[in-house]
């Protein structure tokens, strides 16, 4: 917790002390990118420009960015159905994401995957996942591959509070703990799995409690405070890179949008949503950055402007993309050449 408004960033907390101005700027930029990307995507969805469904992470940007900002391209992440933030956090470009939404050949998945399957292996993003909990064994396996090749990388698994009740959660965390795999489980607890509150779905109040069942560290952080998220992550990365095995980080957060487009928000109150909107992670971060004198308002506005351009250009890029040919439907079911 911050003590005084005048604290210099260097003297404040590890998050500010250990990251350069450029890194912090990039973090803010990515949070804005996620926000604006999703707002524009939502809008194009409402206007009927994209089909399928889409899960927005508006309000959850601090965890995506706070978790990913210290990872390299050879560190892996697995993501979820609510994965735009993770994807951008890990370094994806919004133009290829928009193209994917529009089902274009230029999309990250050549239009075959859509919102729920966006992946970018080049940045270590092994993909969003349409199966709740589907990424848990995959991230664990990626960590195993790292261990097998005696690598120094880590694998990070994003999952939701709802996913924590899947058997895949239990089996994966147990295996990771027994084998001391370099994997970090990041639960984005946004209080609901679709319409069901954690209270109605989960026998414990805090999902981090369950870490004890796997003899691994479990910490709870304010998922809307990027510094809190990142500091927990730095500790988990250090543990994992040094052979200390897996950790579980629970980011308490909230999605201010509905679960997906068909959501009528019958399971929660307007007040609850409004209360959380006040805790928006982006202004909170901007305030801190200014308070600590990292950036002034002009610098922050420059970031926002840059994001605006990037999103607008990305959207235009995607709109003018190439539609797949119907006869290409069988493409990439199998790897044609012998080399993987």
């Amino acid at each position, binding site marked *: 917790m911050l003590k005084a408004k005048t604290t210099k960033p260097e003297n404040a907390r590890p998050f500010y002390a250990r990251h350069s101005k450029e890194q912090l700027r990039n973090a803010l930029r990515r949070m804005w990118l996620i926000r604006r990307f999703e707002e524009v995507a939502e809008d194009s969805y409402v206007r009927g420009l994209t*089909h*399928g*469904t889409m899960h927005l992470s508006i309000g959850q940007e601090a965890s995506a960015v706070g978790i990913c900002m210290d990872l390299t391209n050879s560190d892996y992440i697995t993501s979820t159905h609510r994965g735009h933030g993770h994807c951008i956090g890990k370094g994806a470009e919004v133009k290829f994401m928009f193209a*994917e939404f529009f*089902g*274009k050949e230029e999309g990250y*998945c050549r*239009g*075959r*995957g*859509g919102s*729920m*399957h966006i992946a970018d292996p080049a940045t270590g993003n092994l993909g969003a*996942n*349409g*199966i*709740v*909990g*589907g990424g848990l064994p995959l991230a664990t396996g990626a960590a195993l591959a790292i261990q097998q090749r005696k690598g120094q990388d880590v694998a990070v698994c994003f999952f939701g509070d*709802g*996913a924590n*009740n*899947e*058997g895949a959660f239990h089996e994966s965390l147990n295996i990771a703990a027994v084998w001391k795999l370099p994997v970090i489980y990041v639960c984005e607890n946004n209080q609901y*799995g*679709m*319409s*069901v509150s954690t209270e*109605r*779905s*989960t026998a414990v109040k805090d999902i981090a409690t369950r870490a004890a069942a796997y003899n691994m560290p479990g910490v709870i952080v304010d998922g809307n405070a990027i510094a809190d998220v990142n500091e927990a992550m730095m500790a988990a990365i250090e543990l994992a890179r040094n052979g200390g095995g897996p950790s579980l980080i629970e980011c308490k957060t909230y999605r201010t949008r509905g679960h997906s487009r*068909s*959501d*009528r928000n*019958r*399971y929660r109150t307007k007040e609850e949503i409004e209360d959380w909107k006040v805790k928006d992670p982006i202004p909170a971060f901007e305030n801190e950055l200014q308070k600590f004198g990292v950036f002034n308002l002009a610098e922050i506005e420059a970031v926002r402007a840059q994001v605006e351009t990037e999103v607008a250009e990305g959207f235009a890029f995607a709109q003018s993309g190439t*539609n*797949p*040919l*119907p*006869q*290409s*439907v*069988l493409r990439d*079911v199998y790897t044609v050449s012998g080399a993987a």
Partner: protein
Amino acid sequence: MSMRELSFAQALNEGMAQAMEADPRVFIMGEDIGVYGGAFGVTGELVHRFGELRVRDTPISELGGAGVAVGAAIAGARPIYEFQFSDFVSLAMEQIVNQAAKMRYMLGGKISVPVVFRMPCGSGTGAAAQHSQSLEAWFGHVPGLKVVEPSTPEDAKGMLLAALDDPDPVLIFEHKLLYKTKGHVPEAMYHTPLDKAVVRRAGKDATVAALGIMVQKCLDAAEILAGEGIDLEVIDLRCIRPIDAATLIESVKKTTRLACVYEAVKAFGIGAEVSALICESEAFDYLDAPIMRLGGTDSPIPYSPILEKAAVPQVEDIVAGLRSLVTKRF
């Protein structure tokens, strides 16, 4: 009473409500089936009428959820378990295949397993590969299960009620795109048999055996081909396990040609079983052309709407296929 119209989803909803009224042992479990009303709105307002104990939102735990339903069934309850998407049954195969399907047999007949699984299936919603599968064939391969796929609101309600009165485990595949389609549905409780196909259109030039959403597409295709003087018999298979071979055989003996149309991946799908059943039956001798299968492409369901359409038979594909079937000479 005049012809009352309900949507497919409303028909299922009414069937569940009537069953719960009539039998205190009946209850529903599933993800977001309470206040949310179900991902496709099928359970709707039932939670307000029957309360949270009989319309139970389950944690996101398909193996546990389905298995708990099986356990409740063998202990005297009559559970309905709704998979939010039938794709998620991939997490619950163990309890359905090893437990529910085999328990009666393994126990020498000492127990029955009256559980109903509702399985929203199929593509067409842009939900891509993991939310669009048609997996009914897997269960056709599992003795002990009964597996059906209604194509009309009337059958949806009738099969649901028949399933609830059946002592054995029943899986009902419901194509998502059918939920909003409307049709006549009797208000009273009634059963649609779980082992009978039905001829939806009589014809003499070829038999078209169709499943689920493909029934209407085949009827549309038949209408178009009627304009070309081709007279098709369209059979709604309805039942996957057991398949109603008798109705098929009778039809093929009359028409001498057969196509099977379904959305699932073509290989190892219901088309294979229908083809093989006819081939080993007396109808084989009557065949005047190779049996045709029109199924999904050999690929997952892609996201792009262009590709998604290309991945499953459309009316124009069916028209083209059936035209060639009828004109092919032996």
